[in-house]
């Protein structure tokens, strides 16, 4: 497992959220948000639309008042501090590029009141444009740019002010898939280069996993889990988080006993298993439960593979071919629903057909138990 920042023993908090609450009339938009965002980290707020992630971001930027709690930026309480006086800059979802200005005027907009000579400003704008790969674009009219270019201008415009924290509101959602992947990598590189703390809002779990040092998963105005991507993926704290991050199969299970760090359970399709207590978030109590396992945690034993001690048989119900991977829906013997299983398409390995029966191996360490 990747070591977390605290284990590395570095980076003090730059943003401290303490019991932040926000009401819109009766509507409870933020519910007791407490978190620390560390200096220099790439932090993501991930959740479905309406979970409050954008509200939280805008509260940090100063565009939303909070009903109670506190937001501290760089050690200063931000209550009553206007957005233009906060050490943050925001990259808007629409990019908010000023259409009546040139690219260079857009990027230099925030320097208007800076105590710099016109020459220094021009150089700063040039450097900022260079940084986002738009070196020759300064004189262009802003409204003639493509989506990806707008995104870069918005980044340059925000970073030129060297904010303590850069806030990004779904910055990639307006781009097509290819461009989005390119920009994901560029954003990560850019963040490492400038060393500024990034807080990203996204509803795309894949994007969050790829880009973030840590992710806060939000549902209904509250943080459901805050962890690094790997922990989030491997040890989701609840069934809901497990369903939201990546793909997760759930098999009905029954806890038969627990004690001394072990949990005994009967799982449909898999039979009796013994799990480590760490595989179950919260208390394991006897009775009905569900076991989650990722599509890659079941291994299809193609044509007479090695015998494993933990095997289950099933028949292929559906085949989805992606080129590098194939996803199979497989009806396991003894399980009520089909499970999704992924297999890498390696040289010499054939793609199973619908209706075929196959044997799958599994590892109890890959299971998560949700009570």
């Amino acid at each position, binding site marked *: 497992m990747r070591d977390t920042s605290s284990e590395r023993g570095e980076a003090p908090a730059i943003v401290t959220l303490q019991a932040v609450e926000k009401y819109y009339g009766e509507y409870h938009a933020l519910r007791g948000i407490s978190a620390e965002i560390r200096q220099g980290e790439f932090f993501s707020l991930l959740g479905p639309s309406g979970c409050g992630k954008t509200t939280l971001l805008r509260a940090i*930027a100063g*565009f939303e008042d909070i009903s109670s709690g506190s937001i501290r930026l760089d050690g200063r309480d931000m209550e009553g501090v*206007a*957005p*233009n006086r906060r050490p*943050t*800059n*925001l990259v*808007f*979802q*629409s990019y*908010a590029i*000023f*259409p*009546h200005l040139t690219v260079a005027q857009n990027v230099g*907009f*925030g320097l*208007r*009141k800076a105590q710099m000579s016109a020459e220094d400003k021009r150089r700063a704008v040039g450097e900022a444009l260079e940084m986002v790969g738009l070196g020759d674009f300064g004189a262009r009219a802003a*409204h*003639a740019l493509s989506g990806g270019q707008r995104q870069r201008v918005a980044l340059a*415009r*925000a970073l030129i*002010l060297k904010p303590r924290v850069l806030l990004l509101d779904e910055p990639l959602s307006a781009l097509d898939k290819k461009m989005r992947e390119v920009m994901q990598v560029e954003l990560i590189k850019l963040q490492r280069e400038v060393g500024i703390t990034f807080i990203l809002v996204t509803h795309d779990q894949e994007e969050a996993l790829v880009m973030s040092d840590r992710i806060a998963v939000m549902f209904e105005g509250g943080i459901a889990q805050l962890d690094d991507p790997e922990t989030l993926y491997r040890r989701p704290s609840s069934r809901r988080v497990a369903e939201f991050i990546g793909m997760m199969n759930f098999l009905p299970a029954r806890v038969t006993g627990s004690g001394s760090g072990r949990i005994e359970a009967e799982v449909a399709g898999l039979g009796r298993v013994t799990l480590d207590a760490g595989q179950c978030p919260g208390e394991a109590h006897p009775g009905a439960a569900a076991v989650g396992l990722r599509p890659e945690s079941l291994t299809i034993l193609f044509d007479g593979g090695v015998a494993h001690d933990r095997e289950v048989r099933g028949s292929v119900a559906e085949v989805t071919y992606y080129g590098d991977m194939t996803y199979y829906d497989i009806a396991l013997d003894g399980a009520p629903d089909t499970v999704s299983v992924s297999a890498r398409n390696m040289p010499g390995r054939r793609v199973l057909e619908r209706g075929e029966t196959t044997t799958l191996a599994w590892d109890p360490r890959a299971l998560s138990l949700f009570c």
Partner: protein
Amino acid sequence: MKARPLALFALLYLLVLYAPIMLLPIFAFNDGTVIAFPLRGFTTEWFGLLLETPALHRATRNSLVIAVSVAVLATCLGLFAARAATRYRFPAKTGILGFIMLPLVLPEVIVAISLLVVLMQLGLDSGIWSIIAGHTLLCIPFSVAILQGSFANMDQSLEEAAIDLGETPLSTFRLVTLPLVAPGIVASLLICFTISLDEFIIAFFLSGNAPTLPVYLWGQLRFPARLPMIMALGTILVVLSILLLVIAETFRRRGLRRAGLKDSGGFL
């Protein structure tokens, strides 16, 4: 062709609609005091006569003072209303906006009479100021309609972005909002100016001893000999109105292009 009868109808319709206006320039240049065919010859005498009528000059000055004041007042007030309507949510918003737009459908005679009654009850003189007030009331809905379009076309986060980049709300308005709605402001100024310049009923009721151009024209109709001069004046007014509307529309479209947006209707 199936569309032929409809096309013919449309042509006739436009002809009937605009033919009477075409009479204005024809008789304005006709050498004769009787408004009747056949025409008698070409003259610019009537236009010359316009220059030699002091009462007309006073009326023109009144009209210009009123129209400019109304354009500025209505556009300023319209700017506030349009920004509020597109940016904020507040109680009774639809009701308030409805009241602002009401003069658009209210019979002008009613508005004029009630304004006159109020003025008389307050013991105030009717005159230029009262006409300005009446026309402003009349022009605000047009201004709001035009500017609401400008504000709606403008991405809300642009203003927030400027504030985020360190500007105050006031400097944001100057640096971002104003340049982006400027074409709408120009269009509103020109259209309000034109409406005020042409307006008769309110001006007639409230003018007192300060007649506007339309009111003066109306007064002159009693003297048949002056009819050709009125035709000449009418010709100038028509040309001026069309010119102003075209300029207003040009500005509106330029604003759309600058914001990189598609056209979605307008006045022309």
